């Protein structure tokens, strides 16, 4: 009797979500701690030496970065639309939205590269020409934080290129959405981190 009852019991379901998604979330939890470490160091350095920081717009180009923020937010929408298209088996939509997400991720990196170039070549900070990673605490923390974020975007763009290539072969669909959802989680997290960084690095 006891054996029969045990056999009839549903298998252990754990977190009720598939393994890859749990894995991505655990990874993202570690990423939260990574960026919290960077932001924590930034807070302690900035409060300790507030004279070493410029006012919003003094050194950094806020309008250009606001456009970049806009692009990244739009890419989050197209990513989630690609996932919704996969669930609806809309093959054309999957390809279109993945391509748009890939394109906007690449545009973000391009604009960031332009921003870095302009800052390094033409930036002015505390009387010296060129705002570089060596430009005191301000320059060091700025390039470290935005650089690590940009590296995350770069990895996301590479994965998006791979996902788009697979979409051309029609590999995504209602029966195969997990890869897109997990990639989407990463991509939205990168967007989420940028939302925080844009606020504390550029606007405060």
């Amino acid at each position: 009797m006891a054996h029969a009852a045990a056999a009839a019991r549903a298998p252990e379901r754990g977190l009720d979500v598939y393994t890859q998604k749990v894995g991505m979330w655990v990874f993202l939890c570690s990423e939260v701690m990574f960026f919290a470490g960077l932001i924590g160091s930034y807070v302690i350095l900035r409060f300790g030496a507030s004279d070493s920081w410029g006012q919003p717009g003094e050194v950094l180009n806020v309008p250009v970065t606001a456009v970049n923020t806009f692009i990244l937010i739009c890419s989050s929408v197209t990513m989630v639309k690609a996932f919704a298209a996969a669930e609806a088996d809309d093959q054309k939509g999957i390809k279109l939205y993945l391509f748009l997400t890939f394109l906007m991720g690449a545009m973000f990196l391009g604009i960031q590269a332009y921003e870095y170039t302009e800052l390094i070549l033409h930036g002015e900070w505390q009387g010296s020409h060129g705002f570089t990673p060596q430009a005191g605490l301000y320059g060091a923390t700025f390039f470290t934080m935005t650089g690590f974020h940009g590296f995350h975007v770069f990895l996301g763009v590479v994965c998006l290129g791979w996902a788009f290539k697979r979409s051309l072969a029609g590999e995504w669909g209602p029966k195969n959405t997990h890869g897109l959802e997990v990639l989407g989680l990463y991509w939205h997290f990168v967007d989420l981190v940028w939302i925080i960084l844009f606020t504390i690095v550029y606007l405060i």
Partner: protein
Amino acid sequence: MSEAGSHSAEAGDAGHGHEAPKYMLIWVYLLVLTLAEVGVAFLGIPKWIIVTSLLIMAVWKALLVALYYMHLKWEPKRLRILVVAPLPAVAIMIIVIMMEYV
């Protein structure tokens, strides 16, 4: 946000068992908040008001992305517990750091 408030929080995999979230509406929220942030940053009001309102808007935007685009709103409670698990550690770190200056 209320349009999705009636969804079951205990639905299984995201995207199943609930209506399609209003992705475009959330996008509009995010854009409006971003514009508001840029506007507030350049207002000639006391710095502490600017900083407080900017932080509130940033957390608000982050929550919108996590709840709607990352589907946390519809994930099982156990996954949501897993996701918020590192946040107390972050809070402790930030509070301890800030105590250096109080």
